[in-house]
């Protein structure tokens, strides 16, 4: 914009004293991050920001502003992933104010001082952007980790040719039981397995909803032409199931995983014989 000629003291300073301001900014920001990020990386990040800020201060509102926010967002997300705190991330942005102010002081330009106030509040806004992005990024990380945990905690393993097992450990909630159900049925199709053993030895308690989900899994497995056996029902869980009045009907249940496997092997027509050396 050509109209901003007489207001251009600060943009001019950002341009003419670029190396001094940028160098000081990197030095100040480096203090805050104390070696957890290399100075080269930091300099690359801040140089990118500096270029965008330099373009933004010249114009009132334009494309460079959006670009700057995007670049800032990217940096905040990376910092969140690297485990920096949101204040550390914001402080490295705020450090620019000190770097610029020192240069304004050195020139003694009064007009630049008055422009600095507006510049300062812009930098504050940028700092807030890093806060917002940071917390959004952390939330995403937490959500991803919960998902991974869900997958980790519901492994479907092959016990034998045609026999899959799902050893469940820990508290079963409705969401997790649903994941188990879907994963198990998918794996039955993928592997062409005829039997599935759901072992709940490691499950401390079940409620009505979870018991219903288990039942539905067994029923869905049957509709697909496979058989499901539930093993490891603890006495407390058996009591709960009876007390809740849930009908397990003709669903095959076994005391232990070994019993369930023996049952599935028998139904598959597989007979185990003791080795000659035993």
């Amino acid at each position, binding site marked *: 914009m050509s109209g901003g000629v007489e207001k251009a003291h600060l943009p001019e300073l950002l341009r003419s004293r670029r190396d001094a301001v940028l160098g000081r900014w990197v030095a100040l920001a480096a203090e805050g991050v104390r070696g957890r990020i290399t100075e080269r990386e930091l300099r690359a990040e801040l140089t990118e920001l500096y270029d965008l800020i330099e373009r933004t201060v010249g114009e009132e509102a334009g494309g460079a502003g959006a670009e700057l926010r995007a670049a800032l967002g990217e940096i905040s997300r990376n910092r969140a992933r690297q485990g920096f705190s949101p204040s550390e991330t914001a402080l490295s942005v705020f450090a620019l104010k000190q770097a610029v102010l020192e240069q304004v002081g050195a020139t003694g330009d009064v007009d630049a001082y008055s422009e600095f106030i507006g510049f300062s509040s812009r930098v504050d806004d940028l700092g807030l952007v890093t806060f917002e992005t940071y917390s959004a990024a952390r939330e995403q990380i937490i959500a991803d980790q919960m998902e991974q945990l869900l997958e980790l905690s519901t492994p479907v393993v092959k016990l034998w040719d045609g026999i899959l097992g799902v050893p469940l450990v820990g508290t079963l909630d409705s969401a997790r039981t649903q994941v188990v*159900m*879907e994963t198990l*049925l*998918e794996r*039955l*199709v993928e592997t*062409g*397995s*005829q039997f599935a053993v759901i072992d709940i030895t490691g499950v401390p308690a079940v409620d009505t909803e979870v018991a219903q989900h288990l039942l*539905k899994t067994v*029923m*869905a*497995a*049957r*509709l*697909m*032409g*496979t058989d499901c056996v539930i093993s490891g029902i603890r006495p407390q869980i058996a009591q709960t199931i009876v007390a809740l009045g849930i009908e397990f009907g003709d669903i095959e249940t076994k005391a232990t995983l070994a019993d369930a496997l023996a049952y599935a092997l028998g139904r598959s027509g597989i007979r185990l014989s003791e080795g000659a050396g035993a």
Partner: protein
Amino acid sequence: MERVPILKIGEVLLVSIQIDLQDQTVLALQEDLADRIVKTGARGVIIDITAVDIVDSFIGRMFATIASMSRLMDAETVVVGMRPAVAITLVELGLSLGGVRTALDLEKGMRLLGAPLPGARPGAVGTR
């Protein structure tokens, strides 16, 4: 209206559903199958639904009807290839498909019916 083709493999009638079923097609299939069971003296019916992405109560009821009908004519029905999402939905819908036998895939369905698999027949045509 499209019609679902019925193939005869030995003593088994094979129905492989490859289209989006509308109600008339379902009713026509029931009639066609009854005719073919009588005409061919088939001992088994396999309905392959590997390609079917939804089974509602109408289609589910067809399976049950075909199973009861074929049983009257001394033929056994097996529904094969039901997708997990379809099975979960049917359970939620409240349809148990009582009386319908199911198998994971076509091969297991044939075995369930005791039908000789191609290539496993002692007098199979062809060189080995």
